[in-house]
């Protein structure tokens, strides 16, 4: 793919910057945890940036996504701000969910991110429902359901894909196959062909290198347009890898995956490095320009972390607020 015009260039740099932002966010989240400043567990998506950004760059802010326990990347990719995100991770009132959701329930309601979900596969219904709303109300919004290879074990997914197919809903099911669900390899969790699990329901399925952000973006552009035109649903299988452990505490992991496998992905298939190289080769950006982006992103992240660390916790009276929505 060649960089044709200025708009394209800007878009490429935005993609790069978004991937960088995810990586920076996760690095900081990891540090916050390791330094004891963040409580609870959190799941980092470093390594999966191309999947997340490639898909979300094809979406409008009015389009919907649902996310997973590994949800920071989706959140950044859909347009969220660092500050509200770190506040949420630290349980501060300025977080996207006033600190009540935390890492596993982070959402960005204004940008169509309906939230991370701590139930594997648990948001498949929600995304499909958002697609139903779009159809019922005659809107053009598309709903993307992100989930991992592990979620292929949940029957709910097949129930809702069936309905999405029967009703031609503008839903796109995006499976980020990072090869593991916790400490178990996908081959021990999923029999048969993964794409066939969607085609069985009459859903068009695509398998792709999830480390190639432009390939993902280009497929997503196409499918999103077709979904808007009523040709959905679709299924996309993106082959990718998570660099960190299952969660921040998963340090010793050689019993389920080898160090060689990890380095191979990091050294040879890193989505950011690959795309950076491409940008330089295409003369869209120099190494220096990319470094400038990196530095800006790091600085943004650092500032947001500092802000979040100083920010206030919710008032204790909030503990029993929001259990019920106040009726209009």
């Amino acid at each position, binding site marked *: 793919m060649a960089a044709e015009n200025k708009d394209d260039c800007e878009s490429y740099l935005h993609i790069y910057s978004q991937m960088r932002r995810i990586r920076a966010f996760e690095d900081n989240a990891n540090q916050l945890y390791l330094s004891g400043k963040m409580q609870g567990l959190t799941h980092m998506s470093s390594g999966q940036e191309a999947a997340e950004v490639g898909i979300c760059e094809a979406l409008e802010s009015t389009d919907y996504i649902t996310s997973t326990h590994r949800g920071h990347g989706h959140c950044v990719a859909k347009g969220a701000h660092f500050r509200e995100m770190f506040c949420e991770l630290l349980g501060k009132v300025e977080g996207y*969910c006033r600190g009540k959701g935390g890492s596993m*329930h982070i959402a960005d309601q204004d940008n169509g991110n309906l939230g991370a979900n701590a139930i594997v596969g648990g948001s498949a219904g929600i995304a499909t429902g958002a697609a139903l709303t779009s159809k019922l109300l005659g809107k053009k919004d598309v709903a993307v359901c992100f989930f991992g290879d592990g979620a292929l074990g949940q029957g709910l997914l097949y129930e809702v894909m069936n309905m999405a197919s029967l009703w031609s809903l503008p839903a796109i099911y995006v499976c980020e196959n990072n090869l593991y669900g916790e400490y178990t390899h996908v081959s021990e969790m999923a029999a048969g062909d993964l794409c066939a699990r969607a085609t069985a329901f009459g859903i068009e399925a695509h398998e792709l290198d999830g480390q190639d952000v432009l390939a993902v973006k280009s497929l997503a552009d196409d499918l999103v347009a077709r979904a808007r035109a009523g040709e959905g649903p679709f299924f996309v299988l993106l082959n990718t890898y998570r660099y960190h452990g299952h969660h921040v505490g998963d340090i010793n992991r050689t019993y389920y995956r080898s160090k060689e496998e990890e380095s191979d992905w990091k050294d040879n298939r890193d989505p950011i490095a690959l795309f950076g190289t491409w940008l330089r080769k295409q003369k869209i950006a120099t190494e220096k320009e990319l470094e400038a982006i990196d530095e800006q992103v790091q600085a943004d992240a650092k500032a947001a972390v500092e802000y979040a660390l100083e920010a206030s916790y919710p008032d204790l009276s909030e503990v029993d607020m929001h259990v019920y929505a106040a009726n209009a």
Partner: protein
Amino acid sequence: MREITLSQAVNEAIAEEMRRDPTTFVLGEDVAEAGTPFKVLSGLVEEFGTDRIIDTPISEPGFTGIAVGAAMTGTRPIIDLMFGDFLFLVMDQLCNQAAKQSYMSGGKLKVPLTLRTNLGATRRSAAQHSQSLHALVCHIPGLKVAMPSSAYEAKGLMKTAIRDDNPVVIIEDKLMYQEKAAVPEEEYLIPFGEAAVLRKGRDITLIATSSMVQVALKAAETLAADGIEAEVIDPRTLVPLDEDTLITSVRKTSRAMVIDEGHQNYGITGEIASRIADKAFYYLDAPVQRVGAMDVPVPFSPVLEDLTVPTVDAVVERVRAVVEGRLHDVA
């Protein structure tokens, strides 16, 4: 006033709300042309079409999840769950997803959905089609739970449920679908959290839910002939619960009995009885009585099934024992 059946009342409520708000729709199995197996929704598809009265596959977890997502994005789904026993299938979507969205998002997301289903044994439908499982949903913060005991309540509560911005579980007594009651032609809503005092009395307060309201009222009639005046109260919504009305009554009558068709163990009767035993402690002349369904799966055999559900006779006999002070040996 005209009389209509509980089934018609539900149908009317849904039709009125669907006319009022074009984002309201129905999702469930055999709801369209079939109008549900109980025929409660008959005719709606003619008026609203299959876009808004949507037949689903037999996928309760799936369509509940879809309703949650639809509700979060600007519509008001009404889920039709054919039998209350299928609540077990939708618990994750209902309790982990719907019930918690508002809270988990710090009030920024909401899930205005209504899940209507039913309860009730003695239809010879055996253990998986006869359960009264409202206690399960009452335990989960974020859900509201309404239990109509007549056509009048069914209509008013259903309309309130549909307009509520929260997930509401509304549970009908499937044995009452053909029971008639006076229902105004004019629009009315029944607010949540307001119990109805259906009969005034001085000797004991009978708190009864759903199917048990008629049992309590009939028992009260029989007792009146003996000179025992029972006050009968229907909480109408179990979440929120109108504790004040219950407590005020018991403080007056000094005795109370809670009657509910759910299993007695770890169910509704324990919650309400313990609140009364707490807040009316200094007023009680006798222990609060709990009358729930037997703690057994519902048997098919008619001779057995009839034993599992509280009856008018059982209530009458127990009230007499309480009022006459022949309850426990308190050795």
